[in-house]
């Protein structure tokens, strides 16, 4: 067991964890942050996406010990019960959510893009979510939802 300290959604978390535990399992099983999910365990589907130190990563491909000292944002760290994040609102408004299994990862990839590049082109949007597979929507409405936020048609 190894002690780690990290920031998760703005709060300090201290834990003793097994060396071989994946960050995804730590978030889900220890912190009960269930928004990140496992779809493939191979870093292909992106439904386990979280933002770690300002970068989107697959939490299924990181050992939790490697996140010591890191600053992590999960979907639970976006918006709050009173007010949704503009991307969350836009996803609902544009019908970008069907089954919802890819949605948390998708929104985090989009957030990370807009944080770095507030006015991306359609191509840049598509590339930014190319590590997040979706089988329901055909991506079109997801791209539209992100575009709407980028163009300021939605929220702040």
């Amino acid at each position: 067991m190894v002690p780690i300290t990290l920031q998760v959604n703005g709060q300090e978390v201290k834990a003793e964890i097994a060396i071989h535990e994946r960050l995804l399992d730590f978030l889900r099983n220890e912190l009960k942050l269930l928004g990140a999910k496992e779809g493939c365990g191979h870093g292909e589907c992106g439904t386990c996406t979280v933002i770690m130190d300002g970068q989107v990563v697959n939490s299924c491909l990181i050992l939790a010990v490697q996140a010591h000292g890191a600053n992590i944002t999960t979907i639970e760290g976006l918006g709050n019960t009173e007010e949704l994040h503009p991307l969350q609102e836009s996803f609902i408004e544009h019908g970008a959510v069907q089954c919802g299994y890819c949605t948390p990862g998708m929104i985090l990839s989009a957030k990370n893009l807009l944080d770095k590049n507030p006015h991306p082109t359609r191509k840049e949007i598509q590339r930014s979510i190319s590590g997040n597979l979706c089988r329901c929507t055909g991506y079109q409405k997801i791209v539209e939802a992100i575009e709407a936020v980028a163009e300021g048609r939605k929220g702040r």
Partner: protein
Amino acid sequence: MEKKAQYFAPSALEEALKLLQKHQLTVIAGGTDLLVQNYEKLPALGSILDMSRIDALKGIEVGKEVSIYTLTTHAQLEAHPWIKEKLPFLAAAAGEVGSPQVRNRGTAGGNIVNASPAADLAPPLISLDARVFLQKGNEERIINLEDFFLGPGQSVLEKGELLVKVVFKPPPARAAGCYIKIGQRKAQAIAITSVAVLVEMAADGKEIADIRICLGSVGPVPIRARKTEALLQGASRANLPLKEACRILEAEIAPMDDIRGTAWYRQQVSKTIFRRALMQALAHGEVR
């Protein structure tokens, strides 16, 4: 083994090298290959040496030589201003790796030591005549990247040895490169075949002064097409022996069947992308 597993995350290379002398350790950096290969059996990794906290092994130095330190991520390589401007084909190759998530974690060193014949960085780096700096204990050795690979998943890297950096000379101004990869879709695709061509034109702009060609996924290791290079060395741009070059290239590669494609397809399409890469590199060279 599992119970006794230890975790080391040194902040200095020397410390890491010492630990490797003392313990039986699995080395992890970005983890994007290691955790996939060991899916559902992570405890079997045993004790872990996590390199990701060694800051000295991160980043790119540009001077008389270019040093890409082992922990440089694909995203950093792709976005590096000098690389983007001077070696766009290398930046492009980094941008072809996996997904944004994988590019943010996966490292240049990892891409190399994993020794996949399909590694995206190998062909452009070999075409740049890159060398790798390997260190074990106090001993350092420098190996041509071309000679680093021994077979799928196998390299000259010894137990306890670490890849520290990849180093190459910046090509002259009249040189230009091109990397082309064939994958089944536009993102998250593993190369079925790939090629990097680096061409340097003579001062008069008419002849090829120097050329290096390296292909991925068409043999057990990335393949440098030396005979094809020899044919094209000194060839006149106006009268390129393309057909002959393709014929020689075909004999230099040794593709196999796998889940992504047949040997025959690889053989045929490698010639196409080689030809295209050469023409594009020549066109880029002209612009500069």
